[in-house]
């Protein structure tokens, strides 16, 4: 997004220009700013409090993760995907695993698929809760933030129960799951999902009909649908503009076609509509989690392919063949047939695509991620130019991006 510009120089240059009208001030918002959700930097040109020009600058959280895929073997690289969008680690795990499994033509047993659906939907709740909480906090409703984090804590505990980790779960592995689902997970998930809808009502009580909240969000952050499509915006932002697009329905993966849920759509295309879409998505996700929990099939939780999936501990200690496979997989990984694949999933933020190229070795030749945050962030300038500083905060809150997802 252009070379980094020294704001002081820009300001000086601005002042030196002979100007007839009012003079503009260049405000450097971020990378250290409480509401840019990480290290986004916005160069704002202000006339009073009105924004004349907005230039987002990325790259402050560049991690080189895409490059690092090339030096890990396929299974190890799962852990990299967690770190990309750290609010939705399991969605990223799923996208990557599905892409590689497509290259391997691997059949995933139903139980693993259903656990994957359940946990990715919990991930969606987790991400939407943080998104809603920080969005509300930016607009000044401090309590909603803490209520959201209370529910998020329950979700993180469920993740910890399954994978031993709260954030960087890496629970999905190529070929199924990392571990067998723990004993007693049903009670934990049930307890959460029974209370969750009433908690969503609580947020709505505080915000939806609140005049100040409506004033701050309605009619703010408008951008035409065509512009959004041109800029590559996806996810709840498109659905709030009236376009019913959701990879879970359009190109179902991991048995999503067997679940009954609605894709919420609004037409107002402003910050308020995006908020309502996310609230409704939370309710729908809770519905999917309940369906997955109730209808969980029995059977194995990892694929039956000894070239890819680690053997059971017991087999490894009694069968020579299993021990050999274990040694091979752990030391050099598994080889993936040459080819390329593009797998799309619906992450909480929008369309998450994994483009993986294999050259037949045990390490990916190239993995490119089409991350939703990057696309969504492109809309910033169009959205905020001509509005007030306070609207920038509302608009970037409604985009719900994660900077790790933008600079990978």
């Amino acid at each position: 997004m252009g070379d980094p510009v020294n704001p002081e120089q820009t300001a000086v240059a601005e002042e030196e220009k002979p100007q007839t009208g009012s003079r503009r001030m260049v405000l450097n918002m971020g990378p250290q700013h409480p509401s840019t959700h990480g290290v986004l930097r916005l160069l704002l040109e202000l006339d009073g409090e009105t924004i004349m020009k907005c230039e987002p600058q990325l790259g402050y959280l560049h991690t080189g993760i895409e490059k690092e895929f090339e030096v890990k073997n396929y299974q190890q690289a799962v852990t990299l995907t967690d770190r990309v969008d750290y609010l939705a680690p399991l969605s990223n795990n799923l996208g990557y695993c599905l892409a590689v499994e497509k290259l391997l033509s691997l059949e995933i047993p139903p139980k693993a698929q259903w656990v994957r659906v359940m946990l990715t939907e919990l991930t969606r709740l987790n991400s939407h809760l943080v998104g809603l909480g920080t969005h509300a906090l930016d607009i000044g409703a401090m309590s909603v933030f803490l209520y959201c984090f209370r529910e998020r804590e329950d979700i993180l505990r469920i993740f910890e129960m399954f994978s031993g980790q709260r954030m960087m779960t890496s629970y999905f592995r190529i070929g199924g799951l990392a571990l067998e689902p723990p004993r007693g997970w049903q009670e934990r998930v049930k307890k959460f999902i029974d209370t969750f809808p009433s908690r969503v009502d609580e947020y709505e009580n505080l915000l939806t009909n609140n005049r100040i909240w409506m004033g701050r969000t309605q009619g703010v952050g408008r951008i035409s649908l065509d512009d959004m499509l041109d800029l590559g915006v996806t996810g709840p932002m498109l659905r709030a503009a009236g376009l019913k697009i959701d990879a879970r329905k359009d190109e179902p993966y991991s048995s999503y076609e067997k679940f009954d849920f609605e894709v919420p759509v609004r037409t107002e295309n402003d910050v308020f509509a995006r908020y309502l879409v996310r609230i409704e998505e939370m309710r729908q996700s809770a519905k999917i989690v309940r369906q997955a929990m109730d209808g969980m099939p029995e059977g194995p939780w990892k694929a039956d392919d000894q070239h890819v999936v680690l053997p059971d501990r017991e087999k490894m200690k009694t069968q020579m063949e299993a021990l050999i496979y274990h040694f091979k997989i752990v030391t050099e990984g598994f080889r993936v047939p040459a080819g390329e694949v593009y797998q799309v999933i619906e992450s909480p933020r929008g369309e998450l695509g994994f483009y993986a190229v294999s050259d037949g070795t045990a390490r990916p030749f190239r993995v490119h991620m089409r991350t939703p945050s990057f696309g969504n962030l492109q809309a910033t300038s169009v959205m905020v130019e001509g509005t007030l500083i306070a609207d920038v905060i509302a608009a970037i809150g409604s985009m719900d991006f994660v900077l790790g997802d933008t600079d990978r």
Partner: protein
Amino acid sequence: MDSFIVISLIKEVVVFGVLLTTLAYLQWVERKVIAHIQVRPGPYRVGPHGLLQPVADIIKLLTKEDLVPPYVNKPLYLLAPFLAMTMALLSISVIPFGPQIQVAGYQTYMQLTDLNIGVLFVLAVSSMGVYGIALAGWSSNNKYALLGGLRSSAQMISYELPMSLAIAAPLLISNTLSLRGLVEKQAGGIWNWNVLHGPFPQIVSFIIFLIAAFAETNRIPFDLPEAENELVAGFHTEYSSMKFASFFMSEYANMITVSCMATLLFLGGWVAPWPAEYGSSYVPAAIFLLAGLVALYHGFHPARRRDGYTLPVFGVLFLIAAAVFLLPMVQSWLIPLFWFCAKTGGILFGFMWIRGTLPRFRYDQLMGFTWKFLFPVAMLNLLVTGFLVALRS
């Protein structure tokens, strides 16, 4: 004459000592209230139930590095926090807390000084407080601070109009500018308070006054000058250590002042809601008795381990307080003081409750709200009150 000076000095020491302690502890109360709204315990580590947290905060703020950035306009930068703090503390000197009392043979008022234009004095001093914020924003030479200072000047000047109009209406009814006189006119009971008193109950102007008070003290939903999520820290972005603390304390002192003003103007000051012959003087003792019993009950059934040691102590203290309220020799001044503190505290609690509930206005909406809604309504209210007062006389 000598005794006047001595009494005044003693009163000054007492009032400012109590005020500064209240300032420190108001912040603790606010953190606790907000925390309980937000389902978390709040300060809990420093002392029992975090009661020593204010002390720790003061030590922290005093020992922080006091940084003066090289690019500021130094005289104004240094003046601004003093101005804000002084103006915020000054108005407490005309606030009466209770009726005339007798201490060691001397008759005196529970008030530092009884200005006959007390209301105007408070208004004038609180207007001067804007300078502190505007100068801080401008002299910091920082863009966020500048925007915060600009917002604050515009906001405070705009909200002063409906506030003054809201104050004018009860003044018409009471026909005095002395804060003591105002309260004496409202004596008798809740039906004589200006908020309910005829010829025209001042409920509307009470609400307008409270809304404008929120704006004057930069509290949510009007905390735009320091809107953390937009302007980092607003006008005090560049201030550190005690200079930051003085802005912080002036905000709380302003909160106390406007709550006192609302109590005096509309809620009858230290007057009990109903006359003493119907038992209003037993209410404070009853409240403390109840609080003591609740604390004792929870102390003997502790939810947390430490509560078992701390809550019985609080319970006994509350019971002692209840007993003190029944002593005849202190009742004459303690009970008015109790009602004054209870009313002011109730309004302060409202400030905190709102902060835990509402989001923040946008700058243009805020200005639209005051000019297009509050100002005309306050004007109309004043007109109607004026007519009715004229008709009555």
